[in-house]
């Protein structure tokens, strides 16, 4: 094949080659079957890529889109205007006080009405892991322990945190604070059918919870060996 780079072949195929360069390229194609075949192959590929995406999304009417995005009512809130300042952890991370109280209420209610122990206690207004949740966070390396699943362990600027999810459909992040596990993030979703039940979507942590974790994490999630080392050192 005559000396043509891949870039020049695709530039020709894409119609981005003009003037004398194009004329010279086409002259070479006439003399060089390999080059001509290469051009044919790339043209075929372009047709296939276009064919593989046969349904360009409807662009939509601009006013309809503006309504949907709240642009016409002047009510799109810039993210920065309502985002909490980043902290290693703290009660402010909770999405809302109401959600938090619902979650805590759930645990308290269950501890009263069943044999399930209380998983969360309040200390100076802050939720602290207790009972089997505290036990799982302190002693489980990972995985499930009956009603509680410990998914991942990671470092933050403030220390070590672990994610958890309970069979009561509550997920959260617990962070080591001295000898306790403070819970700066919890989430639950409300069932549409029963106002006394709360659930998370199927799967482990919700996307919003993982987004919170992503804001907190320093580095990558810790592996089994690192977690085991932290457990031995009492999570310090």
């Amino acid at each position: 094949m005559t000396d043509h780079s891949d870039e020049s072949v695709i530039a020709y195929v894409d119609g981005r080659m003009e003037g004398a360069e194009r004329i010279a390229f086409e002259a070479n194609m006439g003399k060089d079957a390999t080059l001509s075949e290469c051009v044919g192959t790339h043209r075929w590929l372009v047709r296939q890529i276009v064919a593989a995406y046969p349904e360009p999304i409807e662009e939509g009417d601009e006013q309809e889109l503006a309504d949907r995005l709240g642009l016409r009512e002047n009510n799109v809130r810039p993210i920065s205007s309502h985002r909490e300042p980043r902290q290693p952890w703290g009660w402010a991370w909770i999405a809302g006080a109401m959600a938090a109280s619902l979650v805590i209420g759930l645990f308290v209610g269950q501890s009263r009405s069943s044999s399930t122990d209380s998983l969360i206690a309040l200390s100076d207004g802050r939720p602290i892991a207790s009972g089997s949740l505290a036990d799982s966070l302190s002693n489980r390396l990972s995985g499930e322990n009956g009603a509680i699943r410990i998914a991942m362990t990671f470092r933050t600027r403030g220390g070590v945190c672990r994610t958890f999810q309970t069979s009561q459909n509550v997920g959260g992040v617990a962070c080591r604070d001295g000898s306790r596990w403070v819970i700066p993030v919890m989430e639950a979703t409300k069932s549409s059918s029963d106002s006394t039940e709360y659930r998370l979507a199927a799967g482990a942590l919700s996307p919003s919870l993982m987004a919170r974790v992503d804001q907190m994490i320093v580095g990558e999630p810790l592996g089994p060996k690192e977690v085991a080392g932290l457990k031995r050192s009492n999570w310090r």
Partner: protein
Amino acid sequence: MSDLRRELVALLPRLRRLAWLVVRNEQDCDDLLQKTVERVLARSDGWTPGTRLDHWVFRIMKNLWIDEVRMRGRWGRLVEALPAEDEIDDRGIGADTMLDTVELARLRERVEDLPEEQRMAVKLVLLGEYSYAEAAELLEIPQGTLTSRLARGRAALLKHYQSGETRH
């Protein structure tokens, strides 16, 4: 309504099309569009009137998506599955005569599996029909880098065919 807001509204249909090129499914598309609009309004001081609003907005969108991809890479289970093969119809150019729908679906997977930098270059130029200069400006890279990414991405796609993965 401010000038920026008015121009942004006029830009929305095209912006949604761009979002569709960048992401992998409609849900992501709408989420990315929403986040982009929020970010644009939050950083409205960063736009100089008289300059290309579409390019500025797209760069914001692109960076938001790159952040999202990085986060999903960390939390791999969030990555959305590609559309099922039976969702790919055969109305595309040449679909009836050159490849069956399964092979087109496979090619689409290959495109989506390209490194992000190559995938964006391929999509903007071949599906978005942007010129090299426009695509390079949108991606904030020199034109030579764009053509290099285009060539590498397309070479990788051809390699799949030449390795006998499909009937071609």
